[in-house]
């Protein structure tokens, strides 16, 4: 089952888990299943129009899905999806 890595700013909306396993054949399906399991994540990942937010980057293994087939990117068992939101802290 593909695993989704949850970055710490978003863990509070995902039952404080660092990773979540979701059954899915594509990246889009995996993210849909993720927010179905954890509805509080939805507004952090998607706009009101249902599009993925521009400041949330999604990687399949070490590759940006924007340079694969985006949300249609097929997943294999053992693939890791990483959600990489922008953080700004430095102080």
């Amino acid at each position, binding site marked *: 089952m593909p695993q989704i890595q949850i970055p710490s700013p978003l863990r509070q909306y995902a039952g404080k888990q660092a990773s979540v396993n979701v059954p899915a054949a594509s990246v889009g399906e995996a993210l849909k299943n993720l927010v179905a399991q954890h509805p509080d994540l939805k507004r952090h990942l998607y706009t009101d129009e249902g599009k993925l937010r521009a400041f949330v980057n999604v990687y399949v293994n*070490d590759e940006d899905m924007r340079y694969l087939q985006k949300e249609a990117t097929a997943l294999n068992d053992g693939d890791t999806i990483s959600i990489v939101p922008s953080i700004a*802290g430095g102080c």
Partner: protein
Amino acid sequence: MATLSDVKPTEAKPEAVLSNDEILRYSRHLIMPEVGMEGQQKLKAAKVLCIGAGGLGSPLALYLGAAGVGTLGIVDFDVVDYTNLQRQIIHTTDDVGRKKLDSAADKLKAINPFLNLRTFDTKLTSANALELFREFDIIADGTDNFPTRYLVNDACVLTGKPNVYGSIFRFEGQASVFATEEGPCYRCLYPEPPPPGLVPSCAEGGVLGILPGLIGVIQATETIKLILGVGDSLAGRLLLVDALGMKFRELKLRKNPDCPACGKNRTITKLIDYEEFCGIRGQEEPAGNDVPAISVEDLKKKLDAKADIFVLDVREPHEYQICNLKGYLIPVGDLPKRVNELDSSREIIAHCRSGVRSAKAVNFLRRSGFKKVYNLTGGILAWADRIDTTMPKY
């Protein structure tokens, strides 16, 4: 592999010639072929600008100064605060209240008197960034907010200076090198900032004290490698550091051909209003001014008079342990599912640390039909300042 014919004695710029004292000081660099005399002279000739003398800026400036970077610029307008000392290791307890620039300058000069330190007591803005960046070779970004992140990136792209990037939150950090000639820029990775309020800052979310050390030293390493021209830089890679799992992962970064800052048909040809771009124009007023509120003095009077009021603490349990007003604890995030624990017929005073989260709670409760709910202005910090000065602040 280097052959003898590759090794040409290089003419050092007169200002980059090392004195005997410097040769002794940099001995451990000089005996490594990857640095050597040529590399050390490159370091001496280099001009690096650090944006910020805080968490990331502390290790950055200390290590770059110690390593022999000839000219180090620091931009900062802040003053050292007690809450900085847990991680901003360039500042000491005696420096609280001093300008960070003065405090940093003392330490850096003590570590390396050969350092040409240039301090800029100003906020980096669209009006001064380009002029400032042009005087340096490399920009190291140690800022703490989105508008300045985008400003630093765009100014680096426009002036052609590499942006050595680091960013931290709680137990996690990111590092990369942006805006090199061939590589991606910050906007290739993040075309747009998050809406204000969605991503908490270190001041709101906290940060493990060692984390800026880890990430700042990675930035210093990348800066030195760029100067020396050795190794594989992080350009084109995003390093993710997870201190809790102690995992270092890297992701591939690509130059976005449609990037508004560095793409073929770029639309950003000059610096813009970054506060507006990040949607925080007009939000400088602390939230909470628009909800019904009560002062800490009035709350004290009501408590002393044993009035029938219900104090609701909407902070997190670990904050309650630091200090509390013996209120009933429901973290603001849990309020929607625990609202049935509250009695809408009673007068409710909600508080948090400074009044922002409790204002959200008051808004939520009023929308849910609670009529007698008020926000404690200034939160428990105001209580500690004005009512019970023995109470710890955090």
